[in-house]
């Protein structure tokens, strides 16, 4: 597995801690929601960055009050058909205003990057055969989109309104 962030393959600075792993003294760590609930004070007291990994079924509402203390949220895809985390990502970005890294982990396919990017993911754990070129091809499959989402692209609806306004102005 490798990490793609903002379209480039980068070294992963984060340690994904299993629940039974000892908490290291320093360095950014990603913990499960269960562990966060148990060791919340300890984890928030560390000086290094903290991330939480949510399983499918663990809605982000549960962490919404801590988001300003988190640098990363990882959302699990237990199977590529399981699209629950698309809604989680959208809510984290659009409703709860999460600005940190939003990482897709688990079973995601290259033909899904476009959708993932649109709902607000900016980092992906991917198979080793995914290159930045493949990633770029996938996310740029469509120049415009019909509906607004968590990306900054204007939806077709807005583009049509702009065109209409321009026509009226001339």
């Amino acid at each position, binding site marked *: 597995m490798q990490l793609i962030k903002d379209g480039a393959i980068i070294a992963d600075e984060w340690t994904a801690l299993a629940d039974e792993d000892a908490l290291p003294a320093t360095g950014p760590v990603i913990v499960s929601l269960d562990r966060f609930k148990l060791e919340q004070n300890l984890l928030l007291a560390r000086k290094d960055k903290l991330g939480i990994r949510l399983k*499918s079924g663990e*809605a982000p509402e549960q962490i919404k009050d801590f988001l300003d203390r988190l640098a990363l949220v990882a959302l699990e895809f237990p199977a*590529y*058909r*399981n*699209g*629950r985390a*698309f*809604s*989680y990502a*959208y809510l984290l970005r*659009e*409703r709860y205003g999460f600005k940190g890294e939003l990482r897709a982990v688990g079973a995601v*396919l290259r*033909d*899904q990057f*476009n*959708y*993932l990017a*649109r*709902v607000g993911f900016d980092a992906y754990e991917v198979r080793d055969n995914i290159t930045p070129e493949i990633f770029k*091809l996938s996310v740029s*499959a*469509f*120049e*415009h*989109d*019909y*509906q*607004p*989402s968590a990306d900054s692209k204007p939806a*077709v*609806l807005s*583009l*049509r*309104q702009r065109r*209409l306004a321009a026509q009226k102005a001339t």
Partner: protein
Amino acid sequence: MYRYDEFDQQLVNERVAQFRDQVTRRLAGELSEDEFKMSRLMNGVYLQLHSYMLRIAIPYGTLSSRQVHKLADITRKYDKGYGHFTTRQNLQLNWPALKDIPDLLAELASVEMHCIQTSGNCIRNTTSDHHAGAAPDELEDPRVICEVIRQWSTFHPEFSFLPRKFKIAVSATEHDRAAIRVHDIGIQIVKNAAGEIGYEVWAGGGLGRTPIIGKKVGDFVPREDLLAFLESVLRVYNMFGRRDNLYKSRIKILVHEVGADEIRRQVAAEFKEVKARGTLQLPEEEVARIRKYFAPPEFETLSDDVPEINAAAAKDKGFADWLKSNISAHKQPGYTIVNISLKPVGLTPGDCSADQMDVVADIAEKYAFSEIRVAHEQNLCLAHVRRKDLYEVYTALKAADLGTPNIGLITDQIACPGLDYCNLANARSIAIAQRLSERFQDIEFQQKIGRLHLNTSGCINACGHHHVGHIGILGVDKKGVEYYQVTLGGAADETAAIGDIVGPAFTEGEIVDAIDTIVKIYLDLRQGDEIFIDTYRRVGVQPFKDKLYAAH
């Protein structure tokens, strides 16, 4: 009808390019069948018993003559010269080669058509009334909002990997011809006391192995908020719908398990948030832009009174029969709706040859403003025909074997492809439908029976809508032998109901006689010119049970 602007066309073209790349990777072995499955299913490509099957989207069942000619060409060039119209107003090709599908999609794109989201666990083709724009009591043309929904749902980034498929249907008349109560979301266009148009929203209806009638979740959603409301329903479903069991993944199970009141509460809470954000508010200019495409054609001022038609009917018995069943009332005087039956005696319901498609496209061009509709009962329809042209239209249709005068009658059956094509099926449905149409082919007997919906499915997934047939037939497999279970009293319209199982299943040899017996019992019990469903609702299942099984 709607025409693509540069944005619509670009999206469809980009999809063709994307799918071409996916097929290339699949054929080169870079994509496993399982990985390819996700992509092909979002593009209407199924792997069936004998071959790939391709489902072409016909948004809300509306086509132009140009598009129908193109479909005819495509079935000749890439398939066996025929197609199959489905209960979701789409067209299926049974024999395309995977390597040809990208070119086929490019040809579709050239006439503003596609196969986007005709399968997969995403929002499917939005269906509607095939009499849209012509029905006398329509509140507004439902296709305007259908097109809005089509665009909003196309490649929706959040709702393309739902727990299961998701089907939306829209009706703008009190009499529901779009079966909205048995859809994941059904939208009934309504008018409030102030004369404003709004949307009544039903959710959690569906057929399949757990048939359920939808529950009302929105009483009057204003037009500008419809997308926000739909997004709210979809988000609740995507987050909380079950994913542990394929057969419990539809929204109907969520609504059923959580309860309609709780779903209403969750949707209302979500809607409040979405609405507050405001990004999905539907601008009136956009609605107006789309509405222009559905403006009524230039009707002439004509009278409904056309003596020459009555004269022709007096001379031509076939025409007289056809007038009795295949014509529906139109809002414009002097015009009528022509329903074209794809249910000739002994053939496959919904099948249409390339030559027939060309004939229908030509007739539409000459007599019906170049517009063709697909009905969810697997028939075609010309929405705006001058009464005075009816005999010419009938003659041209009849010459192409499209003059069967049985719309709404017992041989106007819905049937799924069944074991002849489908790898889910347990039993044949086409063969049963064919034998039933042969048994009941006497048109006068059919007219005597009156309106009766007879639907057959080849397995519990219920693509043949057997649950909502006045008489429903379900094919089941018992130790390798095909059996047929019969339900009575189903309905898909505004009185939607799930049929009652009448008793033990019949063998293939018994089923046609059993249906015949049911019809005779009804004819004995009916009062006046009561139709089957009304008799059934009055007397219940017992008299049918008693006589049907007493005979055995």
